């Protein structure tokens, strides 16, 4: 084996190693490895994830989309999502759109814990003003269109702002928002 062919083998093997490293990066396997939660590996993941929930009449009741969804087989909080957007449809009024940084769906799909900054928004109509709620760490129960948090929450409608600590709300008609303590309201009169 001449000196030249030995050198060639080393170069070839190095190239092969670099290629395989690049392939693992590309397929995201390494990333799945990094996201090990409570000692369990993800069993599947999805990019550009969408989940629809229908009502008894087959109408779309709520939609959950996310940039990325990673599912863990044995964890109670099984489905971890990045940039989740939850939409609650209403018959007469525009849908409620709930946006968060990350979200975790429980194994039975009944609870969705939205973490970090959460924005809840309903567009305005001829009769209704736009309503925006800024809060964080919101626990959502999609089935009953209910959500609650212990964190600070801010309710903005037209030029009126009300803030408080702790909030409970229903997304289903009629909308009902309750602020639990340290409430401050401000109404413009001009």
């Amino acid at each position, binding site marked *: 084996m001449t000196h030249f062919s030995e050198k060639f083998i080393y170069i070839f093997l190095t190239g092969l190693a670099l290629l395989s490293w690049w392939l693992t990066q590309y397929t995201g396997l390494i990333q799945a490895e990094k996201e090990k939660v409570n000692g369990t590996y993800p069993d599947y993941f999805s990019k550009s994830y969408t989940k629809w929930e229908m009502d008894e009449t087959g109408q779309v009741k709520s939609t959950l989309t996310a940039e990325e969804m990673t599912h863990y087989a044995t964890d109670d909080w099984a489905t971890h999502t990045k940039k989740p957007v939850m939409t609650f449809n209403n018959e007469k*009024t525009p849908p409620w759109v709930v946006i968060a940084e990350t979200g975790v769906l429980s194994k039975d799909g009944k609870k969705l814990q939205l973490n970090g900054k959460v924005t809840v928004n309903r567009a305005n109509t001829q009769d*209704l*003003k736009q*309503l925006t709620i800024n809060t964080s760490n919101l626990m959502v129960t999609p089935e009953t269109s209910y959500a609650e948090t212990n964190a600070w929450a801010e*309710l903005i*409608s*037209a*030029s*009126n702002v*009300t803030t*408080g600590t702790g909030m409970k709300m229903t997304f289903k*008609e*009629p*909308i*009902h*928002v*309750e*602020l*639990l*303590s*340290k*409430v*401050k*309201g*401000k*109404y*413009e*009169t*001009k």
Partner: protein
Amino acid sequence: LESDADQPITIDSNTATYDDATSTSIYTGNVISIQGTIRVNSDKLVVYFLDGEADKLVFTGNKAKFKQTPSVGAEDVTGEALTGEYYPKKNLLVLIKEATVWQGNGTYSSDYIEYNSKSSVVKAGDNSTDAKRVHVLLKPKQKTPNDTGLKTDSKKNDDTSGKTSDQNLQ
């Protein structure tokens, strides 16, 4: 003050609920509402919205109390009642049930008192019924020593009561 009407209304309370169906916000627990120099303390406050703006505010308490500084340097006008209704756009505060307003030397008591927060006019009683009797107590101004002629008698009160009293006190 006249400028009170242009100020935003701020509200502090223990809890609050917003109800889309009735377009109302309900504040409960040690509610303090402030607009410029107008300040109302009550147990509960219901804000009624019209086109997204606060149209009517209803205070209830045992009793709900209000005060306002009518003009710079002037003595505060104070009042209380079981229920108060405030109409920001009309600068009108209506005190209902066991209502009393103290303004300068005058005390006005009735079951129905209208107070204009811009002009500080107090209108007590209600023409359409005998039920809203008015009790007005006007204490004479304290006589200063150099006032001549008139004997000072601080116990004598001029106590008038009638169906309606429309006192335009600037």
